[in-house]
C-alpha cells in the first residue's frame, strides 16, 4: 500500500497490460493522479531567457532588463509553471520540511538536466541557518543520480530573512550572497555549466550565482529550476 505524499490517499498501483508487456522499468508513483494533474508542465514557446511560458518565443521584459544590467543572458529552463499546486508543493517540501517530497520530481528534473549535456552541474547552496533548521538543501535533495559539485558557498551574513519572505523590490536589491569555492576557476573555465535552483522568481539569486560563474569564463552557462 502506497500513500500519495501530497494528499495521503492510497495509490492504486495495479499494473496495466502495457506495463506488464513492455520491457521498461516500472516507475513507482509517489503522488496520486489527481495531485499530478494539478501541476502544469512548461512547454514551448517560452522566453529564451528565463523559460517562462509565453505566447510567442521572444525575450520577456524582465530578461531584457537582466541582459542590459549584467551584459549576458542566463538561459534558464524550468520543469513546472509556478501555479497554486507548485506553491503548495514548495510550501510542504521546503518550509514544512517534508524531505520525502524530493523524490516527486527528481526523475523528471534529471531528464531535463541530462538533455542539456552539461560538463558541470552546480546547485545553489543554502545558508548555515537553513542547514541548522531545515536540515537539508532542497536543490541537492532533488538531484538524484546526478553528479554535481558544490562550487558555490553561501556567505554567512547572518541573514535570517529568507529570499521567499521578501517583497519583489527587496529581492531585487539583495546583495551577493555567495562566494566561489576552491579551484573554481580551473573547474569552470571553458566548460558548459548548469546552475540548478528550486524556483526562478525574479532571477536575482540565479544572476548573483551566474555573475560569479561568469567571472571564471565558462564556455556556456545555463540554469535549470523546478518551477518558473
Amino acid at each position: 500500500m502506497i500513500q500519495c505524499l501530497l494528499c495521503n490517499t492510497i495509490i492504486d498501483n495495479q499494473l496495466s497490460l502495457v506495463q506488464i508487456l513492455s520491457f521498461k522499468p516500472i516507475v513507482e508513483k509517489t503522488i496520486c493522479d489527481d495531485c499530478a494533474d494539478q501541476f502544469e508542465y512548461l512547454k514551448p514557446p517560452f522566453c529564451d531567457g528565463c523559460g517562462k511560458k509565453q505566447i510567442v518565443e521572444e525575450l520577456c521584459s524582465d530578461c531584457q532588463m537582466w541582459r542590459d544590467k549584467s551584459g549576458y543572458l542566463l538561459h534558464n529552463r524550468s520543469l513546472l509553471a509556478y501555479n497554486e499546486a507548485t506553491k503548495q508543493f514548495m510550501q510542504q517540501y521546503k518550509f514544512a520540511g517534508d524531505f520525502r517530497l524530493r523524490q516527486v520530481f527528481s526523475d523528471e528534473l534529471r531528464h531535463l538536466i541530462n538533455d542539456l549535456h552539461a560538463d558541470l552541474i552546480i546547485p545553489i547552496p543554502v545558508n548555515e541557518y537553513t542547514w541548522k533548521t531545515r536540515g537539508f538543501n532542497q536543490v541537492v535533495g532533488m538531484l538524484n543520480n546526478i553528479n554535481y559539485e558544490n562550487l558555490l558557498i553561501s556567505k554567512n551574513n547572518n541573514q535570517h530573512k529568507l529570499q521567499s519572505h521578501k517583497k519583489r523590490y527587496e529581492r531585487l536589491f539583495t546583495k551577493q550572497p555567495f562566494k566561489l569555492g576552491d579551484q573554481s576557476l580551473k573547474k569552470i573555465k571553458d566548460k558548459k555549466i548548469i546552475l540548478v535552483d528550486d524556483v526562478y522568481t525574479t532571477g536575482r539569486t540565479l544572476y548573483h550565482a551566474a555573475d560569479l560563474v561568469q567571472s571564471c569564463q565558462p564556455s556556456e552557462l545555463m540554469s535549470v529550476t523546478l518551477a518558473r
Partner: protein
Amino acid sequence: MNEDFLYGRRLLIQELPLNYKPSDQVGISPAMELKKTMIRCTRCNYTSSISEVALPQNQYFCPKCIALGRVSTLTKFYHLPEPNQFPTVADPLTWQGTLSPLQQQCSLEVCHCLQRHFKHLLWAVTGAGKTEMLFAAISQALSRGERLAIASPRVDVCLELYPRLQLAFANIEICLLHGRQDEPYSYRQLTICTTHQLLRFYHAFDNLIVDEVDAFPYAENQQLYFATQQAIKPSGGCLFLTATPGPKLLRQVKRKEIGISYLPLRYHGHLLPEIKVKLAPTWRSQIKQKKLPRTLVQAIKIRLVQHRPFLLFVPHVADLSLFKISLSKYFPKQECVTVHAADKKRLEKVQLMRDQKILFLVTTSILERGVTFPDIDVLVLGADDNVFSSAALVQIAGRAGRSLSRPTGDVLFWLGSYSVNVRAAIKQIKFVNQKGRKLQ
C-alpha cells in the same frame, strides 16, 4: 519573563517566541528516540523506518505530525509542568436552564466521574443534549481549580461549542485552539480544541472531555489516542462522549477499563427511529441507466405529495449528479438540490433546507452529524457502501425525529446487499432503544 505558554505543554524551538531564553526550570527533552532501524517521534508516537525519513548528515524527521510543525532530531522539546495557577471562582456556572430527570441523573454521574478522575464513556443517543449535561461537572471541576479541556475531532463542533460554553461560563476565559486560526495561544483554565491540538500538550489537564470520539479523524487514529493520553496528567481523568461508540471503546468497557453511562432517550423522551431496510440489488446499474429502484420512487412520491421534508444520502459525490438525472426522469418538474463537502454553496444550501424553502436535499455523508432539521425523514441509497461506517449510519439515522413536534420519523435504507456495517447499525439502534424502553 512570563513562561505560562509552556505550562503543561511541550513545544519545539521554532514554536517559542523570538528571542526567548528559557529559565532553569524549563525541561528540555529530545524530540525523537532512535532505535536500531526505527525512529520514534515523542510527540505523536509514530515509529518510522529510518531509511524513509532520513535527512542528510544522519538527521531524521517525523512525517506523520508534520502539519503541526516538523519534529526532527535537529530540534528539542521545551516543557514546564502544569502549576494550576488559576484564580478560584466559587460558582462559575451562569447557565440558567433546566435538565430533564434523565439528563439530571446522567449529569450527576458525570460530576462523580470528573471528581474522581475516572476514565468514563457517556453513551448518549443523537439529540440527547450532551453539552448541557456537562455543565454541572465542568463548573465543579473549575471551582476545584482543575485545568480542563474539551476536545473534538471536528473543527465545526469546536466552533459551535465555544460560544455555548462561553455563555454558560460568562466569567471564565476560554481558550479556543484549532488549526485554522490566527489568534495566539493563551494559558486558560478551560480549553476547547481539536484533537490534533492535544499533540502540543503534555500532562496538562486534570480532566479531558473528548466529544464525538467515533468521528473522523479521531476514530482509529493511533497518533490522536496517544495525544489524548499524553495531554492528561498521570492522575487525571478522561470522559468520552459519543452517540455511536466503536468496537474498541466497547471492548474497553467490557474489560472494565473504563466506566460507562447510558442516555438512551432523546431530550424529548422518545426512542430513536429504527432503520427499515429495502433491498435493491441492482440500484448501481439502474442509476447508470438513469433509473431508480421502484420502491425509492414510491417513497419519494409519497413525501412530495404530502409535503414531508427529507434528506437523501448517497455514497459518493459522483452519485449526486447521476441521481439528479435519474430523478428528473420520474419527476421532471421537481427541483433537486444536491450538496457535497467541496460545494462552494454548501452553507447556503443547508440554510435553504433549514428555512424549509426546499423540500429535500440530496447529499453525501457530510451532513451525517452536527445538523438538525426539525421534522425530516431520512432516506439512504446504497447504505451498504464502504464509505458508510456503522457509526455514520447510526448518525445518519439520528437526523430523523429530533423535534418535540414530530419525535418520530422514517429511516429507510436501500441496499445492494446486507453489509456488516448496516447490520451493526441496526443492532446498535435496537440496543439503545431496548435500554430506553425500560426508562420510558
